[in-house]
């Protein structure tokens, strides 16, 4: 199955969005995502956004990991 990676939303047009990661772009469906806007990172799987990535929680997790002695 094609994997899922975080991609940044560039623009939203109705039920679809253009996402990008390191210059790779695609049109994807966002019909089961609420409250997303350009600039958000979403997890993209099989041509759809399946969830939003929370940058605050991502930072917290990284910080926690960095502090492991």
């Amino acid at each position: 199955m094609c994997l899922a990676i975080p991609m940044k939303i560039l623009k939203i047009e109705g039920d679809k969005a253009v996402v990008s990661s390191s210059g790779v772009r695609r049109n994807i469906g966002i019909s089961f995502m609420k409250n997303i806007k350009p600039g958000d990172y979403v997890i993209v799987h099989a041509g759809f956004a399946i969830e939003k990535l929370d940058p605050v929680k991502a930072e917290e997790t990284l910080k926690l990991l960095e502090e492991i002695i």
Partner: protein
Amino acid sequence: MKYIDEFRNLDIAKKISRLINKEAEGLEPVKFMEVCGTHTMAVERFGIRKTLPENIHLISGPGCPVCVTPKNYIDKAIALTTLEDVIVFSFGDMLKVPGSNSNLLKQKSKVRMVYSALDAVEFAEKNPDKRIVFLGIGFETTAPTVGASIKYAKKKRLKNFFVYSGHKIMPPAMKLLAKDELINIKGFLCPAHVSAIIGLRPYFEISEKYGMACVIAGFEPLDILQSILMLIRQVKLKNPKVENQYNRVVKTSGNKEALRLIDEVFSVKDSEWRGIGNIKKSGLGLSKRYAEFDVEKNIELPEVKTKIDKGCICGSVLKGIKIPADCRLFSKKCNPENPQGACMVSSEGTCAAYYRYKL
């Protein structure tokens, strides 16, 4: 790649590994199982097993949806391609899975690969003279994407788009594995993106009823290592529960919209898992409301005779009872160039992962 590279930091990985080794000291040997194809690949790719202490065993379960698709499904899908105006659309992974006599890739222009079910619907829209059958394979991560595509087809009133649903859901299989004393696992690395859809709730019963330590793990090496640490701590404290390591993506309630979509377009049914057998209420078929898109209700599937696998022990591998090296076909008769079973063909299959990253 943002939000990926940071979670592959080598120095931090080494630190977590050291901590895992320290905290596991003195523990009775314990087995954890991962049930996500992406976890299988990541564990092999980043050599995570080698960093674990002797008493911590991480085994691979049936996390690859392609691998657990019954051979009969493949045979029927191939048979569909023989119908004159039918074109079968599928995710890439399915194309080389061996059926009884052939595979989908060999059906050439009667089979098209897509990255998204929506691409198949859009093709159907542009080609009304053809009947398009999409092979719906995948767990709860993929089902809503196929559901949304079916809804789009309904909106556009398409009469030539159908789905052959082979979708399955994870928790019933996990329950079966948790119960199995032969396998004897103490906890699960819960799938990352399936959990993004279903949330934490489905794992509560598995944890409470069977005493399973459960940690929802992201799929980068730091996520997996941190999650293993969390599992070890749960076992040490004799306090199995459900924890969410991947909270930057997974919400406790999951993705409610996606769950509503699955509920609307699909209905739960019993399902056959290749190598494991029938698991009650573990599959998704199209709901009555969307029966017009159900291939089994609209196209007469040709008769097929499915041959049984000889020598292939994918079933045991999928349950984590055996490892690929235990299979007498592994790497000899069965390899990525000439796969005998689904575990070798799918890029997320346990045997393929072992073969690709073996050391």
